[in-house]
């Protein structure tokens, strides 16, 4: 290629020293003469413009010291009249030091000229070229309706590559007026012209803007200047061409920012509004299109705003004084008070999402200003909305730290004031709103729950794992409860319980249960539930109370209610008492003929297969399984004939058999037995194939034999189901389960430990949930990789889900080719949650009622079901089961890999017992699983019976 001089001045040789930056030192490459040259033909298209700076050595005219092509943006700088500094494309910093400033000026002029010509090019034309070059900036055409097509295309193209996105972000957030704001007027103009295509393009442009997930851009979007325009454009979604949303109307008209007390800080006011808009964007406008990164950018923006807002409120004494002052005014304005209660409830809800520390400060501050008085006031309010808000405050406070509330009650008690507990008990009895009522019942239970006491907030602040917490709780439980708590519970039984259970006691005078009102019925539901709770939690104190009030008899009465759900509650209560295996309760049940009534219920419901029948049989099963002699004696001595007449399950006859054995002096070595159908595995029985035949055939001798010999352990909880799996449990676990299971001799200990393993999948995975985008992203990447494996047909053209043909070909949305233009607009899979996982719930649902809380980390819906190694350590529980790709597709090797996680194949199998290793000690609402294996083991069989309640909170 010929060197064509285009600039005389630059072409003149200038004496210059060439420097290169090496190890932070300017290295002298030599001295020579500098010139500028254009190498491309004059008629070449501008994008092919090839202009260079050339330095020829002064010593050797054929030796070139430097030849560099001028690019649009290499950061050329002119310094001190004689220096030109820039960065080469390979990243090396270079400098030319001219002898004369005139020569420097000439070359500088040449460089500027070339750069000017380069950047004058239409960006749409050479974007693709530029994209290859990460250093090139991106410019979009000035926003005009006519150029929307171009802008949309350019943005889409740029969005596909990392550098392109960076370039776009840089351009869009450039300090001169943000590009977004220039787009805003176009929305209105396009609407005036009724140009739907333009509006659709604007919508796409806005989507692209948002999906760049740049927080600065998003901040701009929710600003006052931009928000209406942006959501305006987003009302015209090309995916719904016939439809226009009404976001602007909602934001402008329907939504209303209310201030009980004016917030003087403009910045905070702005943040409140921005937060609202962000939530609206996230939950409404963008709900369908959000991808993971953008979702988390939105969430973190919301989060940080909320932290600031809460901190502001909590630190602003004047504000708080005015707020709480509303409740002490001489001349109260009920509507403002109502607003204030709602406001406090709102802050409580927001505070759930922020760190425990800040939340704690907020509540401490509130309490100092008189939060409890506000709660007491609001609970008594005639306006149900206020009461609901009050219970919300109460609940979020208790979720946060029940001990604070308890402490407040202790203090009130010491000072001879009526504690909040009193208020709650009184109000529960008269409350008409069923929701408020059940909140109140929960609060009462929590207040007097000795299990939950003593966990100080300190623990939470130390950021301990749920595991550790659970352990602590376990330890605490073994200690005696504090004197304060004990006194408080005593107070409850002396002063509150009689009032609380008065409606129950008053039943004594009733002859019929048929005419109870809805309110009464709902109250009884709560009372019975609380009774079950107290029976377990306050074993001793509740007994005295129950005896003195003759409660069992009343419960028996409620068994006659025509309403099934009341009968069920009463049965649950009875079941709880029986589960305690407590002589006192058993005697009460006997003397009031309760067992007879339960038996009556069996007869009443017997031909039908219904819920009450199941629950009744469950009770008798339990008596049989646990071999509760006192009740067996009672039952058989009084109802022998009736028991024998029930043949459709063997439970009742077995009870009689037990009795006879005991009478004959035969005592099974331990109370446990394999229950119900149990050792079904004999070929003959299998041969029958019938469901009930197996039960009936259970002949007495065989039963007795098993009773005598089988002391596997006391595992068989609940239905006590047997064995199906246990046959496969012998050492080395044969991979194929035999069709016929023979009762196997099993090593007791080993089996126990296997059971343990099976019921607590992996201790490693039980640490508290940690939010880590990296992990989640990695997981989702892996998921994508895996899902593409199962692709039947590499779908080239990404389509939106709804456009698909009926027979699905590709695995999941995650597998769309990321390099195709649409992929930015189409949804990237959110790691959050396409499938469910129990662990997420247990991780701390209490603090996460808001679905919108900062994203949780577990990768779900992954086509590869197996958790990533990191995840196993960091995430509560393994990642989601195969919802994804082929939907738990058997093509993925997850089964095998699961097995590999465990040292022995056998540990995968669980013994056929239904023993629930539920955490008997964990008392928090949702924190059920993370009990260490050892703790479970230690808690022994007292906890078994509690399984029926599902929630750890009610366990004893």
């Amino acid at each position, binding site marked *: 290629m010929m060197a064509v001089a285009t600039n005389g001045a630059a072409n003149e040789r200038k004496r210059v020293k060439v420097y290169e930056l090496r190890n932070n030192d300017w290295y002298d490459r030599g001295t020579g003469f500098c010139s500028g040259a254009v190498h491309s033909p004059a008629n070449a298209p501008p994008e092919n413009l090839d202009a260079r700076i050339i330095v020829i050595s002064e010593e050797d005219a054929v030796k070139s010291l430097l030849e560099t092509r001028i690019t649009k943006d290499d950061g050329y700088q002119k310094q001190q009249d004689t220096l030109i500094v820039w960065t080469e494309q390979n990243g090396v910093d270079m400098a030319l030091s001219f002898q004369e400033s005139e020569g420097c000026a000439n070359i500088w002029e040449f460089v500027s000229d070339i750069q000017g010509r380069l950047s004058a090019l239409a960006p749409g034309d050479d974007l693709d070229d530029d994209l290859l070059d990460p250093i090139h900036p991106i410019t979009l055409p000035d926003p005009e309706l006519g150029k929307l097509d171009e802008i949309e295309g350019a943005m889409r193209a740029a969005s596909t590559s990392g550098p392109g996105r960076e370039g776009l972000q840089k351009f869009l957030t450039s300090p001169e007026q943000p590009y977004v704001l220039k787009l805003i007027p176009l929305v209105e103009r396009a609407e005036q012209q009724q140009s739907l295509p333009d509006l659709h393009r604007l919508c796409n442009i806005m989507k692209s803007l948002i999906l760049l997930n740049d927080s600065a851009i998003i901040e701009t979007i929710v600003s006052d200047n931009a928000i209406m325009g942006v959501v305006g454009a987003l009302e015209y979604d090309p995916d719904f061409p016939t439809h226009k949303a009404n976001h602007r109307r909602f934001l402008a008209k329907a*939504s209303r920012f209310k201030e009980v007390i004016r917030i003087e800080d403009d910045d905070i006011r702005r943040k409140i509004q921005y937060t609202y808009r962000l939530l609206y964007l996230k939950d409404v406008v963008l709900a369908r299109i959000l991808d993971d990164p953008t979702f988390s950018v939105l969430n973190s923006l919301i989060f940080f705003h909320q932290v600031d807002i809460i901190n502001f409120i909590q630190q602003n004494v004047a504000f708080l004084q005015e707020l709480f002052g509303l409740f002490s005014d001489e001349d109260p304005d009920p509507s403002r008070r109502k607003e204030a209660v709602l406001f406090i409830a709102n802050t409580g809800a927001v505070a759930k999402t922020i760190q425990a520390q800040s939340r704690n400060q907020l509540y401490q501050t509130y309490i100092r200003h008189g939060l409890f008085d506000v709660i007491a006031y609001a609970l008594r309010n005639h306006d149900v909305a206020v009461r609901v808000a009050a219970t919300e405050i109460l609940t979020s406070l208790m979720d946060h730290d029940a001990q604070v509330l308890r402490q407040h009650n202790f203090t009130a008690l010491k000072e001879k004031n009526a504690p909040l507990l009193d208020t709650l008990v009184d109000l529960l009895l008269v409350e008409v709103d069923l929701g408020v009522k059940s909140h109140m019942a929960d609060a009462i239970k929590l207040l007097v729950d000795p299990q939950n006491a003593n966990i100080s907030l300190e623990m939470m602040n130390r950021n301990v794992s749920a595991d550790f917490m659970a352990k602590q709780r376990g330890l605490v439980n073994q200690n005696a409860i504090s004197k304060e708590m004990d006194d408080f519970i005593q107070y409850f039984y002396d002063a509150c319980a009689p009032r609380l259970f008065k409606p129950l006691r008053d039943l004594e005078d009733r002859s019929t249960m048929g005419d109870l009102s809805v309110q009464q019925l709902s109250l009884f539901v709560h009372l019975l539930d609380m009774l079950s709770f107290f029976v377990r939690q306050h074993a001793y104190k509740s007994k005295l109370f129950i005896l003195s009030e003759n409660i069992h008899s009343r419960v028996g009465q409620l068994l006659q209610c025509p309403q099934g759900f009341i009968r069920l509650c009463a049965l649950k209560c009875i079941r709880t008492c029986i589960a305690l295996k407590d002589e006192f309760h058993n005697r009460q049940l006997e003397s009031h003929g309760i067992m007879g009534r339960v038996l009556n219920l069996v007869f009443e419901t017997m031909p039908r*297969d219904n819920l009450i029948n*199941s629950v009744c049989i469950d009770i008798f099963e339990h008596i049989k399984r646990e071999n509760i002699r006192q009740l067996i004696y009672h039952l058989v001595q009084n109802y022998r004939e009736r028991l024998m007449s029930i043949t459709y399950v063997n439970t009742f006859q077995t009870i009689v058999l037990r009795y006879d054995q005991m009478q004959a002096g035969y005592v099974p070595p331990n109370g446990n037995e394999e229950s119900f159908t149990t050792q079904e595995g004999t070929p003959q029985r299998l041969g029958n194939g019938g469901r009930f035949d197996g039960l009936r055939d259970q002949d007495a001798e065989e039963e007795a034999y098993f009773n005598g010999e089988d002391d596997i352990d006391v595992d068989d909880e609940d239905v006590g189901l047997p064995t199906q799996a246990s046959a496969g449990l012998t050492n080395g676990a044969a991979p194929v389960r035999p*069709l016929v299971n023979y009762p196997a001799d099993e090593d007791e200990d080993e089996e126990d430990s296997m059971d343990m393993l099976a019921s607590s999948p992996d201790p490693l*995975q039980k640490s508290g949930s940690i939010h880590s985008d990296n992990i989640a992203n990695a997981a989702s990447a892996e998921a994508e990789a895996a899902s593409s494996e199962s692709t039947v047909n590499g779908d080239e053209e990404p389509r939106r889900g709804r456009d698909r043909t009926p027979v699905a070909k590709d695995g999941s949305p995650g597998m769309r080719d990321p390099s195709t233009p649409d992929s930015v607009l189409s949804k990237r899979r959110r790691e959050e949650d396409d499938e469910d996982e129990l662990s997420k719930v247990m991780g701390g649902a209490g603090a996460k009622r808001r679905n919108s809380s900062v994203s949780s980390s577990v990768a779900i819906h992954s086509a590869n079901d197996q958790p990533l190694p990191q995840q196993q350590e960091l995430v509560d529980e393994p990642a989601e089961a195969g919802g994804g790709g082929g939907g738990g597709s058997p093509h993925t090797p997850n089964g095998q890999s*699961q097995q590999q996680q465990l040292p022995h194949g056998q540990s995968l199998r669980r013994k056929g017992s239904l023993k629930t290793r539920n955490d008997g000690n964990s008392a928090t609402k949702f924190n059920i699983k993370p009990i260490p294996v050892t703790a479970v083991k230690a808690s022994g069989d007292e906890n078994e019976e509690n399984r*029926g309640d599902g929630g750890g909170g009610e366990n004893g």
Partner: protein
Amino acid sequence: MSDLDRAIEQLRACRPIPENQVRELCYKARELLIEEGNVVAVDAPVTICGDIHGQFHDLMELFRVGGDVPDTNYLFMGDFVDRGFYSLESFLLLLCLKVRYPDRITLIRGNHESRQITTVYGFYDECQRKYGSANVWRYCCEVFDFLALGALITGASTDMQPSDANIADINSQSQWPSEPSDIEIEILNQHNQITHRYPRHRPAPISQDLSQLSNTPSSPSQAPDQAPVRNGAPGTGASGHSRGSNNNKDGAVFCVHGGLSPLIDTIDKIRLLDRKQEVPHEGAMCDLLWSDPDEIDGWGLSPRGAGFLFGADIVKCFNYKNDLSLVCRAHQLVMEGFKEMFDSTIVTVWSAPNYCYRCGNVAAILELGEDGSNAGYMPRSNGDPNRSQGIVAPLGEREQALMKMGPGRRYRVFEAAPQDPRGMPAKKPVADYFL
């Protein structure tokens, strides 16, 4: 028009009913559900549906494709709520229909019908948003506790009932069996056009059947060496193998949300559970709602943290023991809407198209026809000790007894409903805000 019918009308329009009506409805529903066993007996014909997940408009599409209640007898296998934006309307509509037509619709419980799960996955928030309090959520959760855990379908025909459907692609028709009795599986699209038909295979050699019982992978793609003559449609196990002779027509279909439990070897054991409780984290009830089938032997730990994975051997043994021809479950997203596994001994049915409004999957419902030869009546098997007597065959026919002949299965596959402009999925926030 009764209040209930009015409520149904209103809910069909995707408008929530007032709180006091919800309370009434839930109250009635509870009294109704109390009378149901843990495993509900259902007679064919019945249309089985999987997860709905609050996708109200897709539920409407489901009714359009499958027929309306009470014309069609429905069985919904749980997960009515969460994820979608209309959990409330979807669940309440189903509940209204249940109360209005108790014998024509059966609802069983999914793992999302739980307090804990709904507080995290959206239903709680939705109620809170739509009513300003959690009361309605509470009422619904109380109903959840009463929902049955499973269903047992009897009287399903092994023959494909003739349908009036057209053939979607006329070219493929030639390969299809012409006699209805030869068809085991028929797949229709949402326009009521037949897209696939699969013939029933006649008994295969004994040895093969026995080997299947051990550990042969059942999915054709995993066993290329078996070179099935024809691959099933995505999701079907129709490539496969015989289910023995056709002289036993009474293999029942067990429906459950999640799957099997190591603690439940006979369906009768489910009957003894005290189901009225929050879904526990362990135990039989938990497993029924949380487990998944998987290509493993025996039982495996579930990555979900609840329930188990179970392999083909477990299913086959369970089916044999309980005289079942098929286990039908939901709980897992399948892109094709349904997926048969383990020689068609278990099927996953998924009825939430474009799940979460973005997964791009299609949905399916499964229709089981009525066995005409039995005059449409089958004695209730649940608790009937003699229902399955006589399935024990002489040794030579053992394999026939081991695997019941599956019912004729008609899958209707459908896509997400076209979006109703008014019903563009969205979660409107509360209008008034302090923070």
